[in-house]
């Protein structure tokens, strides 16, 4: 980009909302992966009109635009690897409307997930998608990635909670799709198609979200096992018994110990695996479900089965689960979090393979999983400064992806493809599917300026 182009943006937004120094650009080279790529200018729009003008100019000048929120992306999707503009939406962070009676919320994309939850909870409502990064991540980012979280098993993913949106197309044209009502007026559901499009099809400027009432009661169980296989089998068996828990989370021994080192809850450090299971609903419904779950656990050699007795205890268990990703930093300086999904009954197979890969490459790999969904997040621990080790991490992760696909799984359950998984995409999809995806991307963005060549190479 030249200085004329950069200066043009100063005519659109307040000059204080433009960053161009080397130090400032450095901060936006990253997301939550190890990848890097510096933008040439950072722009913080505050209105839809500004986003529209920025995109119209970028389209005219053929400047790449990488849209981002908090940068918690786990697939490299928010890395401005082709330079250009980092379009940061964190200043568009207002909750514009909360309508409890009609169960709809209108937010700007920079709204932080947790802050929205905090506004809803006192009124007995919540927004179900709850990614681990919810304290920092933005709703716009969640929509871009179709984020999930522990509650997905029963309540679905971000896609299921987006009713409509205001969006700016690559040409700068502003469109409103869907509505604030609970049903989409058009059977061809472009709204839902936008969810998970990773910033390649348009820039969201307003989002209409569906909210739910908090259930009357819940019960949280902590179950420990002497083998990950037993824990994985328990997961499949619980669902087979006709119970759909709100959450069914799995942690292996490495992560149990990391969590215990970090917050000291008294978790069983000797257990090979832990399941955190929660059921919710009307209070009469819960005891029966807990009883069935307990029996299933016992059949699968449960070591310890405990029901949280107080809200404080429940909070502590969830704190352990949510903080374990950060807690692994005590073990090694760097970690890389994978995201693959397999059919639920294939969990034991993929876990076994992860253990083999860990041994083969002499890399500690912790297994964290939204096990009810078959969605695993293997955490590979290493030292980023050791290039040889970094290479081993890449190889190990490739093998994990390959194994997931061979088990009928998919490359990503909730983190997206971005840059990280792009090289593997042709292992999951046939050439005609990739070609179709490419044509769809060009239908939305003929200049290929929006997050260009993320997910797959598009060209012009």
């Amino acid at each position, binding site marked *: 980009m030249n200085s004329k182009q950069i200066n043009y943006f100063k005519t659109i937004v307040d000059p204080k909302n433009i960053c161009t120094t080397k130090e400032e650009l450095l901060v936006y080279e990253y997301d939550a992966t190890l990848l890097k790529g510096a933008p040439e200018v950072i722009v913080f729009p505050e209105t839809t009109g500004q986003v529209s003008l920025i995109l119209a100019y970028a389209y005219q000048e053929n400047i790449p635009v990488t849209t981002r929120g908090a940068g918690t992306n786990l697939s490299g999707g928010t890395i401005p690897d082709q330079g250009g503009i980092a379009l940061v939406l964190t200043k568009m962070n207002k909750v514009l409307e909360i309508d409890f009676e*009609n169960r709809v919320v209108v937010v700007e994309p920079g709204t932080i997930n947790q802050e929205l939850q905090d506004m809803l909870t006192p009124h007995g409502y919540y927004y179900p998608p709850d990614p681990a990064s919810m304290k920092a991540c933005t709703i716009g980012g969640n929509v871009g990635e*179709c984020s*999930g979280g522990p509650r997905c098993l029963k309540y*679905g*993913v971000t*896609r*299921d909670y987006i009713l409509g949106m205001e969006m700016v197309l690559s040409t700068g044209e502003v*469109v*409103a*799709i869907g*509505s604030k*009502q*609970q*049903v989409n*007026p*058009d*059977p*061809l*559901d*472009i709204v839902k*198609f936008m969810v*998970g499009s990773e910033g*390649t099809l348009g820039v969201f400027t307003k989002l209409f979200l569906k909210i739910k009432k908090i*259930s009357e009661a819940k019960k949280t169980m902590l179950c420990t096992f002497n083998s990950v296989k037993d824990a994985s089998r328990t997961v*499949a068996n619980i669902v*087979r018994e*006709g119970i*759909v828990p709100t959450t069914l989370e799995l942690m292996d021994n490495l992560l149990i110990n990391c969590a215990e080192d970090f917050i000291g809850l008294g978790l069983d450090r000797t257990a090979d695996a832990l399941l955190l299971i929660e059921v919710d*609903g*009307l209070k*009469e*419904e819960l005891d*029966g479900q807990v009883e069935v779950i307990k029996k299933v656990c016992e059949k699968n050699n449960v070591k310890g089965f405990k029901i949280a007795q107080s809200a404080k205890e429940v909070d502590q268990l969830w704190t352990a689960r949510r903080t374990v990703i950060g807690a692994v930093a005590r073990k090694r300086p760097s970690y890389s979090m994978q995201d693959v*999904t397999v*059919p*639920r009954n294939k969990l034991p197979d993929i876990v076994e393979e992860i253990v083999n890969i860990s041994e083969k490459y002499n890399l500690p790999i912790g297994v964290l999983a939204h096990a009810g*969904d*078959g969605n695993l997040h293997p955490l590979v621990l290493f030292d980023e400064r050791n290039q040889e080790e970094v290479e081993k991490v890449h190889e190990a992760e490739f093998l994990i992806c390959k194994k997931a696909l061979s088990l*009928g*799984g*998919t490359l*990503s*359950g*909730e*983190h997206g*493809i971005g840059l990280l998984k792009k090289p593997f*995409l042709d292992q999951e999809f*046939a050439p*005609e*599917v990739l070609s*179709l*995806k490419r*044509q*769809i*991307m*060009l*239908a939305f963005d*003929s200049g290929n300026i929006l997050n260009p060549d993320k*997910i*797959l190479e598009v060209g012009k």
Partner: protein
Amino acid sequence: MVVNNIVDPKDNKELQEIISKAISQNQKLLLKENLELKAPTVDEKTVVIDLAHLNKVIELDKDNFTITVEGGINFLEFQTLLAEKGFYFPMDTYASGHTSLSYNVLHALPSYSLGEYGNYREYVLGIEAVLFNGDLIKIGGKNIKNVSGLDIIGLMIGSQEYFGIINNFTLRLLPLPEEKQVVICNFKDIKTAQEAAFQLTNKGISPAKLLVVNTSGAQLLENNTKITKSPLLIVELEGFKASMQRKISILQETVAQYDATCLIISDNIESRDLWTIFRENQYQLLAKTVDSVSFSGFYTKLPEMVTQLDNELVKCCSDFTIIINCLIGSGMIIPSEKAGTDWYEEVGKIVDKYQGRILDKKSFKEPGMGIVQEKLKAAFDPANISFFGGEKV
């Protein structure tokens, strides 16, 4: 209408050949179900696809709660088959007894249980489809979560045969609920029925179905002598036995405020028969008229909106059947044969007044998205063989 060119592929290869031939011979294609439901004018060149032979269950995976099935299977037979095996696919539409799984999904036919159970996208995990560009594509599998690139499955659902035919599905199943009960309550007017329904959505009892029908709509249950002809609230409660009694009590307390009287149907066969009659009558009513209209509204505005629709349409035009799915704030108006043509405009005015929206039966109508949608169509159907696809882009 005489239609000569009906083809019934025996397998996916044959379906692909039919579509390839249509591309090369510039023929339009549509699914057979449309002949009854949409009554399109087809010429002798148009190819009508009957998927009835593609009706095999390929795999019922009890561990993963998934089924892989061919798309030609009759929707109601499919659900009956699942129920016999203890599984549940919660979509239930007026056309269930007459249409294939493919037709239901491609047209995203509105399920009575939309709301509590979400929409088709939450259950379609994998597809095999023949696109109108001739490609046979396979996407997804048995994975509950999948964000590997763009959501083509989501785009195909509700695409109304613009893009291609889905001929194979892998679907997420649910466990069959322990218990089901249907409660039918008579109200003195449609406004109070609608208000009671709105209250129920806030009581935490999560009905599987929550419908309000006007007095004409009550005739959809014509064979049931126990039901008085008046505006009705039809509630299906399901879930665990342990909480059923309380759910019923909450429902009864709520409707009692409106002096409504309720009939509780606990017998599974009786409730199944009731839905069969309701569905069948709605389908026949729809098949008689191609001019029904669907709309959506805010929960809070529906009582007034629906009351006005019920009153004004009769004054202006004729008798109308109104069916509201209160879980999603969406309704359908089906005119009688005497209705004429003025009613559509009247509906539009009333729906607008309450900030509701008419749900367009045709696709590709999102404002401002015209060019994008045309390009999408060109990617999927470059030869423009979709019967509903309009002019070539």
